[in-house]
């Protein structure tokens, strides 16, 4: 069944819960071994970081000064740091923060980007040209520099971190949404919705938005690792979360300072961070192929 057909069916049965587009995509995603493995790994890491800190006996900020720089072993799975804190607990807790930043900031960028792109594409004409011109100008700003500047000037503020990162990442999302909206606007089903006299609001939210979900999900999956990387960069420069809290970025920073005596301090956070980024990137690629077989590579 071609994707156009499934899309039309999806539209017809938009009130029912399951739709063949999603079932098809799911089947295709599962068939992609790398993406399926990534999904499995990612779910595993998420579960570990969400419930892990609650069930393990040691806390991330518990110090044991008699047992500093202990090598990985049976009591401390990943070893301990300079204050005798259990690295396993800190990696799990840090992952929680890193993933939370990744998802929340992506959500911020998603809301801004989709709203902006949809408005611009739907309005079209001069307004669209103006709104996209603004995006172009913002694109040419050295944003990483601004984020760093913002964090240095106003201190380590968690809310500000989300806003700053979200403000950087929404631009591409807006461009993608706008392009999709522009082409959807020409589609026959939108024309018929207009002919039926539906309001702009109804057309936007009931007809255009559901059809944007595919590309938006794909791009969001790729935004999460980008955001996590940016957070880690800020943490590495000493601008992220504050000790004794940890994120993967700040753990890597601490580890890199002490790696001569205790290489495991950089190895485990680095491993978790890199593997999670890798899994999210593979998952994003897999989702793109699954949701839009036309764009499949090669």
């Amino acid at each position, binding site marked *: 069944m071609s994707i156009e057909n499934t899309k039309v069916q999806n539209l017809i049965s938009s009130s029912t819960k399951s739709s063949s587009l999603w079932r098809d995509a799911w089947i295709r995603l599962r068939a992609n071994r790398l993406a399926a493995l990534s999904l499995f790994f990612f779910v595993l890491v998420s579960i570990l970081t969400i419930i892990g800190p609650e069930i393990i006996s040691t806390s991330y900020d518990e110090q044991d000064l008699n047992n500093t720089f202990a090598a990985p072993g049976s009591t401390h799975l990943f070893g301990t740091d300079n204050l005798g804190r259990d690295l396993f607990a800190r990696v799990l807790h840090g992952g929680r923060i890193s993933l939370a930043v990744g998802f929340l900031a992506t959500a911020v960028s998603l809301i801004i980007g989709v709203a902006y792109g949809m408005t611009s594409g739907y309005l079209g004409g001069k307004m669209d040209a103006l709104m996209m011109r603004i995006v172009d100008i913002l694109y040419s*700003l050295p944003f990483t*520099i*601004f984020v760093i500047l913002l964090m*240095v*000037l106003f201190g380590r503020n968690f809310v500000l971190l989300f806003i700053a990162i979200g403000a950087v990442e929404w631009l591409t999302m807006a461009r993608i949404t706008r392009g999709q909206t522009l082409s959807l606007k020409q589609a026959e089903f939108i024309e018929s919705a207009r002919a039926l006299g539906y309001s702009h609001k109804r057309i936007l939210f009931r007809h255009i938005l559901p059809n944007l979900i595919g590309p938006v999900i794909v791009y969001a999956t790729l935004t999460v690792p980008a955001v996590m990387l940016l957070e880690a960069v800020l943490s590495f*420069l000493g601008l992220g979360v504050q000790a004794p809290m940890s994120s993967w970025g700040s753990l890597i920073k601490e580890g*890199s300072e002490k790696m001569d005596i205790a290489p495991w301090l950089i190895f485990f956070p680095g491993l978790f961070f890199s593997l999670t980024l890798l899994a999210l990137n593979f998952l994003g690629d897999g989702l793109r192929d699954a949701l839009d077989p036309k764009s499949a590579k090669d």
Partner: protein
Amino acid sequence: MVKFILVRILQAIPTLFLIATLTFFMTRMAPGGPFDSEKNIPDEIKEKLEAHFGLDKPLHEQFILYINNLLQGDLGPSFKYMGWDVSELIAKAFPVSAQLGILSLCIALLMGLPAGIIAALRKNSSYDYFLMISAMLGICLPTFVLGPLLILIFSSWLGWLPPLGWYSFSDMILPSLTLGLFYAAYIARLTRAGMLETLNQDYIRTARAKGASPIRVVLCHALKGGLLPVVTFLGPAFAGLISGSFIIESIFFIPGLGRFFVTAAFNRDYTMVLGTVLFYACLIIILNLVVDIIQASLDPKSRGR
């Protein structure tokens, strides 16, 4: 072409003005001032210092004054490095960052292009899989993990290369490698995709049918089209190399502009922060323009835009 360049330069002016305004008010709105951190400094001296740098005037007057000086090409004196102008400081620190960036870019191109071409020519072979999995690893291993790991292996364990500093050529190897590997990996992926697409084109079949040697087909016919995505990527890559060097400079203790910038922001050195941001913005705009020109000369289709 000349018109295109002129339009782009004209467009850059409002962008730069916007950046200057944003940064100016952002730095001033931030808590703290340039002379707050200095201990044991009597109030009279502090007032004198502030008067000397015009910090006692109302904010909008300061802004107009700054923009006025800026239009004459004057970035003003640094508040923290007494007796130094911001432009002098940039001129001192930037060559180091530029050296790092150029070396990294060379590494990225020298490793990424051949890897991508080989992977495309031997599609779905074990070479292809090996190269592309390495590339994915390279993309996901962040510089601040890779950098310390390279130091650990090549300095602490093997003792081959110095872990920090920026004096001799051997100092430059590890930092450039750390920064370059990520871009090498990205370029390899882009080159592979671009080459695969080009190799399927009719004109490649024509070239092959004419009896051109495989090397000639790749180097003279396919490469030009296959490299387009790489050239498009070079614009953002330059911007990334610049901001990426912040991390590298702090890992390897390199006295480049990135470190100056972060220190200046911590110290509330207003003019230094503004000057550096504007300098970076100009650099990115110019580099993007150069990339667009190269792109237009490679791809006739994009010339009309």
